[in-house]
């Protein structure tokens, strides 16, 4: 280095510096300048613009924008010097505080001129090799340590916990009472309280293995997947709307929610769970890839029309997939590297875009399901469409008469009927005088005689003529207008904008009474619609008589939310009745049609040819740099595909890499999430950040040991749950003690079971379970929490629930950003961002909601009625029953007396309302 810098000095130096005999000394002359002026922003604490001046290697590399900032020997090319001199506009350094003195600037200049000599080994800090970070290392071999209190431990994990407690001079708490453990484990594994029967049975079961039998039953219960599914959906920020301003309904998202519940209930090995969510389409698990597109997204109409807006929206959408995947499975905040190399972790911007390239062919769209059920639904939808059209024809009989003085419905693009008094004629002319756009188009013109036969059909011998036409092969042709086939691809188009006519001549004179016409009965096109028209019949050579026109119709309004297709205005009563029956039938069929159409689709990403992914300067889509092929994080692996790798292959490759048992992050992250679910806090307190900014594990050996046990069990989540809830650690009492509180008030070291409040969903579910109203139907489209399932705003909460509204809350239609009116306030995530851990807060709004809402009051009434039904008229028995149902125990003598007097005076629902609000009800014991 010395040699090199002296060479530079000779080449680049100016003579001014030669006048000084002694070269500038970094440690005594330069570092103090840096310390005084620079380190507050470019030192150990902060590294603004990525520049750090207290470590040689970092300082010489320079910041993101201007690096290298120090070019040895080249003063003029060293941005650092220009900044302190204020030569760059807006970039005078330091921006605040005292400027460098002339002396200091000269000294700095000389130092650079002389080669910026910075001796090795004098820095106070050392650059950490980010790849050496603990979570990136292979799982360490560990075995349960030796402990003093050896008979306390029940399972392997207990010895790790105990060893740490002993090291800190702490001792474990006594075992919780059986009843407390049962309540705790029931809530913890299923999100519901134990029933009085379960409480009784466990109290009676004094045989060995009683605890294990309870756990096995709870894990086998379908309620388990419903409860733990919610934890997972929190992390992936699942919702049933698209988010952002318009927050439109996402009607086919729920199959993914059901997939998660099924996967957890069936103890799907976690590695497979990972693979299916990234590339389930490759193995026939279509709903699983709903994972990829759980984020908020701007729909096409909400993105600017300009290309830059579109590029940015696409980048945002891809970013969400990268963030979701890396955070959920790997516990890494890869998203931070979108604009610059990660400030703290070994993730470069290049890594980020290489990750993005795996998903470059994923669109936020519904995908057609290829299951047998979906095929059936498709056939069903076709059948229903035909049946609905047939009903429309029948309804046409009841169309109000034209020119009768009754205002008729506006025209619509699907199908219109003009009915008139029966008239004899050989031919009919349909003349169009205006359209909503372009040249008019008719897909079919039907003319019915008084016997109900369409006499306009070519097959019936009718012939057609027209003012003109545009012929497009297999689509538009005059002969399509009476070929008996519907839709745009069997239609006539005029050759004139806004006008044109079609005339039909029958084989013989007919007594006709109805003309039925439309733009597109298949409802794909809404343009080219005749908005002003007249229908005439021939009365002899060259004379036409008007029988119907658009003048008595309401005027046509484009994009009117839902145009009515039928009106009974002006009909005699008996016809109103017949028409109403048909309409009801039609409505029912249409509901089935919606269901059949939805059953063919799942919002699980549409896969297409991948976009080219470029490294983007500062994350700006307008500043693309080189193209980046799909590749895994360079600090962790070497899997890389070519830039033209096919779409599915990309995702499969990524999934295999994440789910590889050798990936050190994947098992650690999930084991930690499960631990957190049980104890409220993970061994790593930051479950979605195992990076350098995250917390280090409280018990590193335990984490690695559990991860290895997990792999040995074949990635079985249920095995892990079982191990944890049967442990001595988990069985401890949650009671406080002075010794523990003094040393570790958060119980991070688990000297007791850390008490916690139930989550929002569990509170609602538990209330319903206790009131006897819980509806245990599983799966399917979510029930409503509001008067609408999506939309801009104005969500009016449902206050009184019945029927499917009494199902578990995981089956609610989750509207992004709209907190549920009662339970939303209990820290229920709004699905905007990933919630890896719910923050438990306590607010007066929660108290108002839980104490005063219709929901609580109605369920208190139901609870009281249930108690009365099950316990009879005796008030003491009612109180006993209420306590048992709500708290899993009978009342004390004092409680009984108190409750009896209240129930006697005000009725049992008062007691029930208090119980449902009580701390004992809401906290895990």
């Amino acid at each position, binding site marked *: 280095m010395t040699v090199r810098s002296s060479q530079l000095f000779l080449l680049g130096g100016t003579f001014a510096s030669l006048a000084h005999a002694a070269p500038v000394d970094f440690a005594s002359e330069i570092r103090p300048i840096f310390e005084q002026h620079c380190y507050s922003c470019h030192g150990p604490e902060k590294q603004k613009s990525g520049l750090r001046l207290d470590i040689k290697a970092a300082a010489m590399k320079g910041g993101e924008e201007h690096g290298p900032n120090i070019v040895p020997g080249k003063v003029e090319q060293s941005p650092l010097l220009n900044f302190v001199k204020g030569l760059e506009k807006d970039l005078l350094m330091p921006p605040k505080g005292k400027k460098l003195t002339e002396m200091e600037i000269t000294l700095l200049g000389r130092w650079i001129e002389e080669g910026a000599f910075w001796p090795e080994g004098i820095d106070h800090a050392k650059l950490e090799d980010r790849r050496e970070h603990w979570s990136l290392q292979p799982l360490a071999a560990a075995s349960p340590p030796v402990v003093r209190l050896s008979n306390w431990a029940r399972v392997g994990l207990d010895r790790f916990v105990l060893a740490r407690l002993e090291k800190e001079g702490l001792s474990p708490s006594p075992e919780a009472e059986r009843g407390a453990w049962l309540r705790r484990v029931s809530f913890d594994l299923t999100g519901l309280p134990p029933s009085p029967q379960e409480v009784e049975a466990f109290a009676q079961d004094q045989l060995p293995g009683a605890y294990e039998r309870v756990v096995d039953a709870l894990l086998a219960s379908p309620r388990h997947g419903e409860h733990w599914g919610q934890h997972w959906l929190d992390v992936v920020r699942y919702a049933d709307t698209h988010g952002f301003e318009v927050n439109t309904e996402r009607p086919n998202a729920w199959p993914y929610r059901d997939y998660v519940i099924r996967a957890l209930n069936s103890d799907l090995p976690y590695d497979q769970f990972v693979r299916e969510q990234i590339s389930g389409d490759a193995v026939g698990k279509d709903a699983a890839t709903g994972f990829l597109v759980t984020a908020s997204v701007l729909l096409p109409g909400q993105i600017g029309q300009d290309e830059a807006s579109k590029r940015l929206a696409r980048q945002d959408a891809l970013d969400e997939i990268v963030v979701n995947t890396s955070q959920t499975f790997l516990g890494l905040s890869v998203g931070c590297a979108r604009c610059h190399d990660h400030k703290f972790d070994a993730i470069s911007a290049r890594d980020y875009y290489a990750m993005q390239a795996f998903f470059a062919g994923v669109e936020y769209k519904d995908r057609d399901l290829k299951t047998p059920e979906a095929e059936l639904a498709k056939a069903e939808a076709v059948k229903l469409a035909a049946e609905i059209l047939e009903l429309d024809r029948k309804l046409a009989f009841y169309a109000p008469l034209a020119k009768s003085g009754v205002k008729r419905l506006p025209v619509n693009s699907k199908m219109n009927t003009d009915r008139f008094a029966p008239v004899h004629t050989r031919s009919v002319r349909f003349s169009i005088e205006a359209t909503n756009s372009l040249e008019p188009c008719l897909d079919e013109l039907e003319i019915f005689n008084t016997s109900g036969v369409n006499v306009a059909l070519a097959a019936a011998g009718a012939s057609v003529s027209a003012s003109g036409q545009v012929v497009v092969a297999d689509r538009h042709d005059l002969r399509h207008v009476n070929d008996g086939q519907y839709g745009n691809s069997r239609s006539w188009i005029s050759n004139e904008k806004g006008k044109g006519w079609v005339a039909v001549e029958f084989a013989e004179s007919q007594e006709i009474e109805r003309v039925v016409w439309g733009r597109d009965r298949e409802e794909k096109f809404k343009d080219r619609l005749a908005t002003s028209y007249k229908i005439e019949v021939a009365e002899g050579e060259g004379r036409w008589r008007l029988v119907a026109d658009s003048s008595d119709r309401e005027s046509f309004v484009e994009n009117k939310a839902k145009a009515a297709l039928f009106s009974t205005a002006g009909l005699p009563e008996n016809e109103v009745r017949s028409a109403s029956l048909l309409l009801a039938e039609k409505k029912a069929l249409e509901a089935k049609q919606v269901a059949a159409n939805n059953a063919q689709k799942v919002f699980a990403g549409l896969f297409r040819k991948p976009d080219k992914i470029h490294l983007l300067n500062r994350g700006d889509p307008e500043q693309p740099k080189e193209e980046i092929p799909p590749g895994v994080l360079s600090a962790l692996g070497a899997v890389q595909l070519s830039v033209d790798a096919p779409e599915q292959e990309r995702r499969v490759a990524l999934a295999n890499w994440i789910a590889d048992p050798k990936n050190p992050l994947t098992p650690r992250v999930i084991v930690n999430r499960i631990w957190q679910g049980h104890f409220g806090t993970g061994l790593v307190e930051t479950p979605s950040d195992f990076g350098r900014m995250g917390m280090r594990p409280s018990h590193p050996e335990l984490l690695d040991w559990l991860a290895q046990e997990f792999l040995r069990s074949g990635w079985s989540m249920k095995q892990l749950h079982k191990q944890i809830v049967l442990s001595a650690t988990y069985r401890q009492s949650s009671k406080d003690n002075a010794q523990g*509180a003094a040393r570790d008030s958060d119980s991070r070291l688990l000297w007791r079971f850390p008490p916690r409040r139930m989550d929002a969903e569990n509170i609602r579910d538990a209330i319903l379970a206790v009131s006897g109203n819980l509806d245990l139907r599983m799966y399917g489209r979510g029930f409503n929490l509001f008067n609408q399932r999506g939309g801009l705003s104005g969500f009016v909460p449902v206050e009184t629930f019945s029927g499917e509204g009494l199902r578990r809350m995981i089956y609610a239609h989750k509207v992004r950003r709209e907190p549920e009116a009662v339970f939303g306030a209990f820290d229920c995530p709004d699905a905007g961002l990933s919630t890896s851990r719910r923050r438990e807060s306590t607010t007066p709004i929660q108290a108002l909601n839980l104490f005063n809402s219709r929901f609580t009051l109605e369920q208190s009434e139901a609870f009281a009625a249930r108690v009365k039904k099950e316990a009879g008229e005796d008030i003491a028995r009612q109180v006993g029953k209420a306590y048992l149902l709500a708290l899993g125990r009978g009342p004390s003598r004092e409680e009984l007396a108190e409750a009896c007097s209240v129930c006697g005076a005000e009725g049992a629902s008062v007691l029930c309302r*208090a119980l449902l609000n009580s701390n004992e009800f809401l906290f895990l014991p």
Partner: protein
Amino acid sequence: MPSSNSELLSLPGHVLMDRRRFLSNSASALGSIALTNLLGGDGLLASHPVPAINAAQPYAPRPSHFPAKAKNVVVIFCAGAVSQLETWDYKPELVKWDDKPLPGGPAVTFQGPAGNLARPQYEFRQHGKTGKWVSDLIPNLAELTDDIAFVQSLTSKSNTHGPAENFLSTGFNLDGFPSLGAWTTYALGSENDNLPAYVSIPDPRGVPQNGANNWGPGFLPAAFQGTTMSSLAPIRHLSAGVSKEADVAAKALLQRMNARHLEQNPGNGKLAARIASYELAARMQLSVPEISDLSTEPEHVLRAYGATDTQSKDKAAFARNCILARRLIEKGVRFVQLFNGAYASGGKLNWDGHNALKEQYDVHANILDQPAAALIQDLKQRGLLEETLVVWCTEFGRMPFFQKGAKGRDHNPDGFTCWMTGAGVKGGVSHGETDELGRKAVKDVHPLYDFNATILHLLGLDHERLTFEHNGVQRRLTSVEGNVIREILL
């Protein structure tokens, strides 16, 4: 550590307080971290100091980072993007260029093809000592310019209402981040714990485009989300609608149940906090109806705000919202957000003037102008403006040209105006400029980050130090950006 009003706390509250004292006196290594943890302030790195929140009193006042100029904030949020060219940003050049194409202008903007430049749709005249040019659209607000600091060179990171309202309210385009009001009350609590610390008052015509995102807590504890109430819709669940006897009996029974349970589980701060939350709820049940009852306001006040207007019920309702805002501020509520304009509606219900700008702005300005101006004057008269910051903002501006075939302007995130007045703000200042046609900010350009950083600064908060750890990132209102706009500060 807030303990000044500990005498107000019930027995369980004292248990909590005693425990906290006990902990802070202990020599525990983990104790100091644990203290911040009572309200879910978890995952915190020791190097990031965070507000110490007492779970039993989440709205208790907390100290700012440095002495604050402003104690409270009222934000008047005009949803839909108010055109700077029809309000505060006087562009005489645009008159000359009326109906001519913008040389080198974009062919396509957010909603479609661009049309010709269009002159401001209202006349401008000078106001006050500074001679600030303001349009005739807003004559009452125009009278206040000597007290206002305008920032005329703001930029947004999105040209779409949803992400841009997110950006204005939370500092990020994406959904899910905490709002300015949530950050503020998280940091500072409130001066009145009988009322929510943060109140959001929706426009009588409906909630703004981005709905609850504008007052959401994001990943901050739920205690800090805005509580919505307005002169038309009170807080939900304030009462149960059961007989008074049954209500009192249930409350008393619950209190005894919880007290007994706490006795059996001594030292559990979460239990004590829940008990305290019911006490606070009970106080809110009394104080909220009282504050919403405008019948005690004298006639001349109602008239001054326009609350008696019979021509426009929307104006009268917005005026009542403005009076409500003043009453909340009077009572020490920390953060009040007052919305003017509802959701997307082709410009009918908010300031999104794409097609018929003048026609629609006549309506909207009539609703905004008199009530908002009256609010500021009322605060000033009562001496409240010395401690209260009033902010007027909108998510972005509008283009100097009309859209093709329309009489309205498209979205423009590249240069627009917001302003503030009151505590700590220099009056009669117009900072920053757009180009002579108002297309882009060109002088002293400020991304909205700077505007938000300035608001926090006035509240005595350093936007770089007000952080919260979420999924591994120390999040801030201003992301990794933000410079306080010192030119508009006293």
